[in-house]
């Protein structure tokens, strides 16, 4: 190390040392976010603070709302006012946002919600990390909806995932959930980040009066075209409530879901591989646990176990196809999670027995270490799996 320090770049380094939460804020600004509404909550608060600092000087809107219910409502309202909007919270606030998240889904409103996960349930462990909201991010609101949930496992990853979240939220006209955790949010790493762009200039497609507003139609906010009707009731392409049954809404939701699966960028970003090609043991992980798993892979390889990592960078939609490919090659799958077993369910459902799926869980606020994962992988390889 003493030697390494000699290679100092002495100020030529353009990297910045920032927290995951700051990277989220910078990513949002880079993606043109000009509206933030939120409410303080550990461990997401620094996103709120950073947006409070930055947005006014860019002419954007920062609103500290009375609660998380209204924060979610405000960003949906803002999106329909033409803004590129986001909020950030943690488990308790995310639970409160679920109803309005469903509204954003049925009204096809682009917006970004960050959930920095802490130990749950309830108030739980406010300052400690968890992955306990993975299924909630998909199923937390009542009814069915298209879901797009993105993860990150580094500070740079927070920045990139935020930019991606906004991009996909706009492309697919939907709320996108960025799922972090207390460690990622508060971790500092040096990152290379481009300077922020100038404040965004709003521009939307032109719509004529009779054009559909929902389904495959482009998102055009109020005031940027002919009048539009938006409702949380099941509705048709014209926005008016369906009076008998929800045939049109069901079709639009199914259509949205299938478009997610076919999006080339989602397909490209869906999962990350590490030494997976010849792996006999595939570790399927995401977020902070994927970092530990990566180190576990190295440790396992050193010990002669052909291990590899599939990092679920986009949790939902779930990368079923990829899982089936992995299962076809690696007959053992290990799913380590900081919860009592959540994403292991879609993994099992996807592989349908093609590989033996073992789960490794911890939900006490402590991270799974590389050693934990490696030891578990060895134990299940020896036939003593969970």
């Amino acid at each position, binding site marked *: *190390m*003493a*030697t*390494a*320090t000699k*290679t*100092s*770049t*002495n*100020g030529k*380094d353009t*990297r910045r*040392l920032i927290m995951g939460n700051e990277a989220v804020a910078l990513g949002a600004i880079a993606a043109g976010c000009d509206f933030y509404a939120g409410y303080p909550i*550990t*461990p997401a608060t620094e996103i709120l603070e950073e947006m409070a600092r930055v947005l006014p000087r860019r002419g954007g809107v920062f609103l500290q709302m009375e609660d998380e219910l209204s924060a979610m409502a405000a960003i949906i309202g803002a999106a329909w006012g033409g803004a590129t909007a986001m909020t950030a919270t943690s488990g308790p606030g995310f639970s409160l946002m679920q109803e309005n998240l469903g509204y954003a889904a049925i009204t096809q409103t682009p917006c970004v919600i960050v959930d920095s996960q802490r130990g749950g349930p309830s108030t739980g462990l*406010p*300052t400690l990390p968890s992955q306990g909201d993975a299924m909630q991010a998909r199923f937390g609101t009542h009814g069915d909806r298209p879901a797009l949930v993105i993860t990150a496992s580094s500070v740079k990853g927070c920045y990139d995932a935020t930019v991606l979240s906004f991009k996909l939220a706009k492309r697919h006209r939907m709320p996108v959930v960025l799922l972090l955790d*207390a*460690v990622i949010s*508060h*971790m*500092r*790493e*040096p990152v290379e980040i481009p300077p922020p762009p100038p404040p965004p200039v709003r521009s939307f497609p032109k719509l004529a009066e009779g054009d559909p507003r929902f389904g495959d139609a482009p998102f055009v906010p109020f005031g940027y075209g002919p009048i539009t009707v938006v409702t949380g009731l099941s509705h048709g392409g014209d926005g008016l409530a369906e009076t008998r049954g929800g045939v049109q809404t069901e079709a639009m939701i199914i259509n949205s879901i299938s478009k997610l699966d076919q999006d080339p960028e989602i397909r490209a970003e869906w999962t990350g591989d590490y030494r997976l090609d010849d792996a006999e043991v595939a570790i399927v992980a995401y977020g*902070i646990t994927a*970092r*530990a798993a*990566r*180190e576990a892979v*190295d440790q396992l390889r050193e010990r002669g176990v052909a291990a590899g990592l599939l990092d679920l960078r986009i949790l939902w939609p779930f990368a079923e196809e990829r899982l089936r490919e992995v299962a076809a090659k690696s007959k053992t799958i290990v799913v380590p999670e900081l919860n009592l077993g959540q994403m292991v369910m879609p993994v099992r459902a996807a592989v349908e027995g093609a590989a033996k799926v073992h789960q490794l869980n911890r939900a006490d606020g402590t*991270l799974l*270490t*590389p050693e934990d994962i490696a030891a578990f992988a060895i134990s299940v390889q020896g036939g003593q799996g969970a």
Partner: protein
Amino acid sequence: MRLVDRDPIRIRLTGRGGQGIMLGGAILAEAAMRDGLLVSETQEYGPEARLGATKADLIISTREIAYPEVEKADLILCLSRAAYLRYAQSLAEGGLLIADSSMAEEMGEAESTVYLPFRATALELGNELTTNIVGLGALVAMSEVVTRFSLAAAVTGRVKRELAELNNKALEVGFNLGASVQVRLA
């Protein structure tokens, strides 16, 4: 392998809430970055932010850092009694614990421990809040995990402008404190 040659090297800064441990972690991490190294820094938050033991963990490396938490630390800086009680046992084999002298009497001597008068020195400088900077200076002087140059730049960049001079002075004193000590960096 000598302690200073460990790569990655794991460092834990500890103290009680209000002693500037978080800031110290950020400064040391930034110094590492300025040295062209890779670094990850994580912190312990808690409702007892202003009391009790708290820590900042750093991993500094020339290679990509996967798992960012520190289980066993190669270097521990310890500024308070509660932190000592809680974190001293997390010292890695062959690691070095650098603690405030106020604890020396109670904790007793150990091969792996060095006591230095950080708080007393800070009080001499007229501001107890510089204890963390004195400590960082000593730690870097002893371990050379980052260059003094980068550390000084990081301090200047991260403290309030009106306190920059005071902190630079504290850093200098810390460097001297550290340099004055003979330790085995085995």
